[in-house]
Structures are given as C-alpha cells and as structure tokens.
C-alpha cells in the first residue's frame, strides 16, 4: 500500500465512497513525493470547505424547504475528534517534554531530551511550521462538529442562529489544543520579547 493512501481518510466520507477507490488506484501510478502529498491534503481541505459552503449558501437566500443534509463532520464527531487529537499529538508531546525538561527542570530530563531537541533544531522549517499550526488546525477540526450556523431570511430580515452542542471527547481535544497552543504561543512570545537574538 502506498504511504499516501491513509490521507484519503481525511476526505469527506460521501465523496470518498464515490471517488475514493479511483483516487487510490491513481495514487498507485504516481510517485510518492511531497508535491503529491500536499496536493492530496489540499484536495481534502478544499472538499470540506466546498461541502460547508454548499451547505450554508442556500440558507442565505431562502427560508423553509426541505432540511439541508448534515455535514459528514457533524455526523462523525468522534472520528473528527480523533483526527484532531492525532494532529495535535506531536506538538503536545513536544510541549510536554519541553515543560518537564526546561520549566520544571526535572533532574535528568534535559540531558535525556537533548538529542531529540537538537535533531528538531536541524529539521526542515516545515516541521516547525507543522508544530505551530497543528494546534490551531486541530482546534478548528475538533470544533467544527460542535458548531451549527444557520442563516435564514425570516419576514425579510436575515436571521443568524448559532447552535452549539457538547461532545465530551471534542471538548477534551479542544481544551488540549488551547493548552498546547497557548503554552507554545506564550513561550514564543517570551522568547521573542526577552531573549537576545543569536
């Protein structure tokens, strides 16, 4: 199996049922490279955004009529939370290890994690970017199934209804994203403001 195939799981499930097999077959004929991987990720994101727009747009211009189908993300909040958790996991590990080693200064931790940190320091910038962006992206993914935005025109005026629902797993992942993202952001801010440039 191609290493890129698991990315197909990020595609909307309805779309995947129709095109997933064809796309998987096409991947077998293409080289595994970063460009293809990024294109697959961008494709998945585009389809989710498109589905969201398709779902919301009719509500902007009409009221009544049959209920709109629920977005796949809202039908699978648990799976969404797990994807978000996987996405934020590397950053969470990094933050936890840094916290134990450099904030709490647990004996032996700094020396133990030094090779890992050195390796990270020499990794491509894309790795840094991923670590930074992952909590934000994971937050959005975990939050999406919890938020229902309904725009409708009632008696000539636009009515916006925001519905929130609570799903324990999604809320836990959201809290983790806030914690990890907040720690990382504050750490970077302090480093930027108070540490002399190297």
């Amino acid at each position, binding site marked *: 199996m191609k290493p890129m195939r698991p990315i197909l799981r990020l595609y909307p499930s309805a*779309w995947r049922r*129709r*095109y997933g*097999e*064809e*796309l998987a*077959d*096409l*991947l077998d*004929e*293409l080289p595994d490279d970063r*460009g*293809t991987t*990024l*294109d*697959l*990720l*961008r*494709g*998945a994101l*585009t*389809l989710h955004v*498109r589905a969201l727009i398709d779902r919301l747009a009719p509500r902007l211009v009409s009221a009544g009529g049959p209920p709109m189908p629920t977005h796949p993300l809202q039908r699978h909040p648990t799976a969404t939370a797990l994807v978000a958790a996987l996405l934020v996991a590397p950053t969470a590990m990094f933050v936890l290890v840094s916290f134990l080693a450099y904030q709490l200064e647990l004996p032996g931790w700094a020396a133990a994690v030094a090779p890992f940190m050195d390796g990270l320091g020499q990794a491509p910038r894309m790795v840094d970017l991923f670590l930074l962006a992952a909590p934000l992206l994971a937050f959005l993914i975990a939050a999406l199934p919890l938020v229902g935005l309904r725009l409708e025109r009632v008696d000539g005026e636009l009515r916006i209804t925001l519905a929130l629902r609570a799903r324990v797993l999604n809320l836990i992942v959201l809290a983790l994203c806030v914690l990890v993202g907040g720690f990382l952001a504050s750490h970077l801010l302090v480093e930027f403001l108070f540490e002399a440039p190297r």
Partner: protein
Amino acid sequence: MPDRSPGSDPGLLLLISLSGGPKHGHAMLLDVASFAGVRLGPGTLYGALSRLEEDGLVEALPPEGRRRPYRLTDSGLAAVRGRLTGLSAAVSVGLARVGNR
C-alpha cells in the same frame, strides 16, 4: 500577480482534455501535462472532476477494470466551447495589441 491563465483552472483543463475523447484519471493527467505543460496533482484532479460531474458537465462511463473513464456531456461540450471562444477572443485582441507596441 495571481495566475489567472487557463493553466490555473483545472476544470477547464479537464474539459479540454475530455473534448478529445473519454479518458480515465491517469490519462487525463498525462494529456493535460502534454498540451498545457501543467502537472495536476491527484487531489486537484479528482476535486475538479467531482465538481464537473456534479455540474453535469462530465459523466462517468462503466469501469474498465480498475479504471473508470469519463466523457463530456453535451452541456460540457457547450461549456468548453464557450469558455475557449471567450478566451480566444481575448487572446486575439491581446496579441494584436502587444504586437502593435
């Protein structure tokens, strides 16, 4: 300046490709690369293809083994003809103006 050339519109490239006859995904990638010099990624290809099918501009044919070919519908043919005619007029005017300078 953002790229607004036909090469930046995967949907149009696929319509042009399918106007030459039915093709499956990989054949479309190769065809687009040969006539436009654009390497479409698999996500871009199937994202655009699904939109074209949803809009009724292309339709899927019965699978041939593991591959499923697609072909233009009558609406798709009219759409690609209209788009290319519009582009052709703009290109003619543009080339004439550039040539006069």
